[in-house]
């Protein structure tokens, strides 16, 4: 009932959730029921690829919450995404048990390779799924909280804040590249076997992961919608548009920023945790500054400040990326740059803004 109330006036959201629901039902069915070779059959590979896109869509919604509504252009959300991914990866590593190349019952292969004789303390607990899921949220949330507490309190805003977020993810990338950090260095975490006892290579597991990702995307969307339609959401927009005014009517702007930024980071972490079992690897490359910039481009392409626009942008750009990196790999970065310039100049409100304009004209 509450949910229906929430999206009653949100036509874009209704459409988005409906299409998502349809895809969640139809895609597994087309995969399972139709024989391979049938023109409408969807291969498991494609299902997993789509699942990856949906994880990106959730990430894009998180970026949009901070950028579109709160006005914080984060160029470091890749860090939160990657931390969530690493937390999930650590769980998956510990599920390998003695099936690794070196057959050590406790230590992941890379630790044996480094001649470590004990599990570092920060790997404790990751054999338990609930603990790993907790860390998927706590690790990025805590980082965002500490970072935000320092930055917002000193009233760093605008470009300076964006540069700081970019530096944050860059610093983490360098740190995670180091073997001594204990996260697998360069190679990251990979060779996962199973999740909650389900074989990650099995088609059924992959379809299950796709469905879970779709459900989490829907849930994430609904929660974000609830936030932006609450009074707190209106205060966030007020902070975005006139920070001083908001302060002088009695809101603690720093607290508002901190709360929403931290929540956004948690959401990005969850997206990372959904991504890792589907792609089968997490490495420091996910912290790369370029990744975080790409996320912002997804949101800009889709149209910021709408939530569903961000998701649509993520799906479109990533589809384009998969296509282009297959067909003309050298071109992708240039295409991405050109896309950003074009969208900024021609479509300041993104594809969704364009569609709304078309609709208003007809």
């Amino acid at each position, binding site marked *: 009932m509450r949910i229906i109330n929430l999206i009653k006036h949100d036509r874009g959201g209704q459409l988005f959730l409906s299409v998502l629901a349809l895809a969640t039902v139809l895609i597994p069915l087309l995969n399972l029921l139709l024989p391979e070779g049938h023109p409408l059959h969807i291969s498991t590979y494609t299902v997993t690829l789509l699942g990856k896109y949906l994880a990106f869509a959730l990430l894009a919604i998180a970026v949009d919450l901070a950028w579109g509504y709160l006005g914080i252009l984060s160029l470091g959300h890749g860090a939160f995404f990657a931390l969530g991914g690493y937390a999930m990866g650590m769980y998956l590593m510990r599920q390998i048990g003695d099936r690794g190349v070196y057959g050590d019952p406790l230590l992941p292969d890379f630790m044996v390779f480094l001649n470590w004789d004990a599990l570092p303390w920060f790997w404790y607990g990751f054999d338990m799924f609930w603990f790993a899921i907790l860390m998927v949220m706590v690790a990025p949330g805590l980082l965002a909280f500490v970072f935000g507490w320092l930055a917002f309190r000193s009233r760093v805003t605008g470009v300076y804040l964006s540069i700081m977020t970019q530096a944050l993810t860059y610093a983490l990338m360098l740190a995670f590249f180091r073997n001594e950090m204990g996260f697998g260095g360069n190679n990251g975490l990979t060779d996962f076997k199973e999740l909650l006892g389900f074989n990650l290579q099995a088609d059924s597991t992959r379809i299950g992961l796709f469905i879970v990702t779709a459900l989490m995307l829907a849930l994430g969307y609904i929660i974000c919608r609830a*936030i932006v339609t*609450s*009074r*707190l959401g*209106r*205060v966030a*927009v*007020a902070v975005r*548009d*006139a920070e*001083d*005014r*908001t*302060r*002088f*009517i*009695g*809101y*603690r*702007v720093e*607290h*508002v920023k901190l*709360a929403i930024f931290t929540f956004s980071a948690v959401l990005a972490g969850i997206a990372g945790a959904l991504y890792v079992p589907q792609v089968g690897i997490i490495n420091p490359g996910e912290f790369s500054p370029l990744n975080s910039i790409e996320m912002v481009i997804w949101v800009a392409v889709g149209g910021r400040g709408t939530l569903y626009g961000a998701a649509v942008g993520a799906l479109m750009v990533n589809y384009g990326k998969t296509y282009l990196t297959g067909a003309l790999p050298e071109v992708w970065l240039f295409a991405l740059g050109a896309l950003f310039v074009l969208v900024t100049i021609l479509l300041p409100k993104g594809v969704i803004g364009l569609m709304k304009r078309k609709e208003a004209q007809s």
Partner: protein
Amino acid sequence: MNSLDNLREVMRRDRVFDFMLQTTGLEVDLSHGTILYLEDISVSFDGFKAINDLNLYIDAGELRCIIGPNGAGKTTMMDIITGKTRPDKGSAFFGQNINLMQLSEPEIAQAGIGRKFQKPTVFESHTVFENLELSMAGDKRIWPTLTAQLNGIQRDKIDEVLEIIALQEQRNLYAGALSHGQKQWLEIGMLLMQSPKLLLVDEPVAGMTHQEMDRTAELLTSLAGTHTVVVVEHDMDFVRSIARKVTVLHQGSVLAEGSMDEVQADPRVIEVYLGE
């Protein structure tokens, strides 16, 4: 034993931790009839003294006009009262009991000081109604704000303010679509929603037509008495139409104070204004 007592003390259900207490609970003490004390305040920007040993007292319920040439420090004075700028020296008290130097901007707002900026500042992508809703006095911490729902009394309060600022018909319009004068009024309306004791109004009639000016004068004079209003203005006709007591600021300190006629007859004031 001792620690057990401590624990008992902490767990007492009739007590609230200090950090849980709201600043809205801080009632301003007006027992001496003075709502604002500014004493020996100085502030300089890169060596330039914008405020220089300023002393200013405002009575509760008063409507005070502050005039002075550009750069006299009028806006800076408001920045100090509202916590935006910290002075190099001096003291600022709200009533007998509230030391403004120790409070942040939102705490000062919660304590009952509302401010209209020199450049009208409203939330342009919110409707007029939402602008007023956000400004409403109340618990402005994160969780209560997230779960806040408007009740009937609050809606009535918003309607009441909409009527005072004559924007009933624009209630569902985005504030960005308002005229300059309407934005000024909306901002005054936002102040009223905070139920402040003291209103600081910086150049309210800039960019207004004569009609709008008259209405604004009416509005501000009607507020005095129940509120204390401090108006900074350049427009002498406007000041003459509302002022009972005028303070002239010049180079960061008070040059003259009195009725409009007294002040205008003061040779030092004439020199400052004609010397420009």
